[in-house]
């Protein structure tokens, strides 16, 4: 017998004996209602919660009424950090914004797979588009079926994420209700810049991924 058969054989012998805990079936319903009930319905207030949660994890928040305004914000960020190039892994919005910054910034499309990580490792700033945002935790969801690459999210020092206001959800439970099975199966959830507190519990940003995560919420 191989390992699989031996392990499953042992487990078969214990199946269905002695249910471990008793459970009140109303609990999940109560829990979901309490989780939902702690959030406002209107998107303005959700945006405020998102901004607070993002700042609590050292992220930076901007809100833009139009693509032009978002492009101006991107330009300002790049200028203040002396960036002259930006990698764009876009959906429509990110691409539209990129079109409007070309006179001040070199816009780089995702490189071919073979050179991708080498090229991206030398680029300081990237712009990506989040598929969903979560107000409670300031998390951004990037299902791989909608992405060209996830490396711009991780290799650049500064990541600018574009999030459409109508893509903002209240909490993680709501997010997983909105994701299709295919979307949730290959996914990365990002909350704030990369961080470590492994030395004396002192928080340092930019562990192996980005040092800055800037979210532009777009109407």
């Amino acid at each position: 017998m191989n390992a699989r058969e031996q392990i499953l054989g042992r487990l078969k012998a214990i199946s269905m004996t002695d249910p471990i805990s008793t459970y009140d079936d109303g609990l999940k319903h109560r829990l979901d209602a309490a989780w939902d009930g702690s959030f406002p319905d209107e998107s303005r207030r959700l945006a405020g919660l998102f901004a607070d949660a993002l700042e609590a994890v050292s992220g930076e928040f901007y809100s833009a009424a139009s693509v032009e305004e978002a492009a101006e914000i991107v330009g300002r960020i790049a200028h203040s950090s002396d960036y002259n190039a930006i990698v764009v892994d876009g959906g429509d919005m990110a691409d539209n914004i990129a079109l409007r910054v070309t006179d001040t910034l070199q816009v780089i499309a995702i490189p071919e797979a073979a050179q991708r990580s080498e090229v991206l490792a030398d680029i300081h700033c990237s712009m990506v588009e989040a598929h969903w945002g979560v107000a409670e935790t300031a998390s951004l969801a990037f299902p791989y079926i909608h992405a060209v690459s996830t490396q711009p999210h991780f290799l650049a020092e500064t990541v600018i994420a574009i999030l459409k206001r109508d893509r903002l959800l209240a909490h993680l439970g709501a997010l997983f209700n909105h994701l299709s099975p295919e979307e949730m199966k290959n996914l990365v959830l990002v909350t704030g810049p990369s961080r470590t507190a492994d030395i004396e519990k002192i928080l340092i940003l930019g562990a192996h991924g980005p040092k800055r995560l800037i979210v532009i919420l777009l109407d």
Partner: protein
Amino acid sequence: MLKPRKTHHYIRQALKNDCLRAAVGKATDLAVRKRQDLVNETPYWEDLRHHVHHLKSKVLENPEQSLMTFEARCIANGINVHWAEDAAEARQIIVDLAAQKKVKKIVKSKSLTTEEIELNPALEKAGLETWETDLGEYIVQLEGKTPSHLTMPALHLSRYDIGRLFEKKLGIEYTDNPNELLQVARQRLREHFLSADMGISGVNFAAVEEGAFVVIENEANAHLSISIPKIHVAIMGLEKLIPSLSDLPYFLKVLAPSATGQKASSYVNIIGGPQQHLMEEGPEEVHLVILDNGRSNILADASLRETLFCIRCGACLNICPVFRQVGGHAYGWAYMGPIGATLIPLYNGLSEGRYAPFLSSLCGACFDNCPMRIQIPKHLLTLRNRIAESGKTMLIERVGMKIWSMLAVRPRLYRFITGLAAIVQQLIPFDKAFPAPGYVRHRALGRMDSKGFRSRFMDSEDRREGGR
């Protein structure tokens, strides 16, 4: 790897180390405070604890069925599933895979299961260049030791220790600035990410319904270990199952506050197969090793199977008065603190792990803080009983308990003997206590002529009678 049977020796070493106690105290205080703030903000926290406990019971109630469904879905998603009976088999699967794929360099993200199976020495022995990439794990790897906490591997080291370590091992100029130390590690490890042939990670959760697994982290090293090398190997204990990804939010909601005092971890990676066909990046091959190593026997043990619900958040360590005194290395194994004290004898056997369940004051704080509602004190008592019944305790303990139980059921004899001891006590010169070598090294032995429980109890009864 340390050995649980040497626990007494490790404890003595730890108790002599004031710096260790200060470092552990500072880090755990902060973690406890941050967790408590988040729990206070969540009025439905208790319901969450009940719910995640229920989800785990549900998926492990019929583990054979759950694992077979999970395996079938993983295979349908293009994941290669391997099964390992024990640590040696798991190590061999990974070493063989590396040889077959001509792997030279491996980047690893933090995984307690790989610590449990002692993977790194096996990889190094096979000539594979292996790099831990989580900062804390990287530090511990350079130090040549094992992690001292489930979520804070380098908790036992100060920034000065780390500065000296980097100076010695990496040949850099001494600095104790945490940011500069991180930059050195980041730069070195970035090179390894870009040139590694294989990435290895653990698994936080494995979703049965979807055949996908979840890797949670804060540094982005796990994502880079998964997405850059062409081969990814994940290793999971067979208890990591959850029913479905739609249940994941409940686990995420309890894990981050309990582990790091955050509302959410920085990165949650969900892997449902090789991603090459989606993005032309990420691993071409994903391998998943499902490890038993004693878990199926624990599942068969109705009174202790709940110990496998652990999500390795470390909250029980941070609150434990014993862990806070002795740190993680004193337990002598990959898992430490209150949950380690239960897992050590369960995985290593009652003889090898005979001291671990006694490293607890049974105050119950671990249960109160455990997001999974694991009744650790109850399990520790069960294990203490089993150890005592199996005769694995020290001779002096066995004789002592025999004498005590003989006296306890004979109140008159008990009174006579303790009265006699009180008289003898007063004959000892300089008001010294009874000699009890070993026992009094780190604590005081009560005086036999002091006012003991019996006489205090009788006094209070007399007072109550008088007051009526």
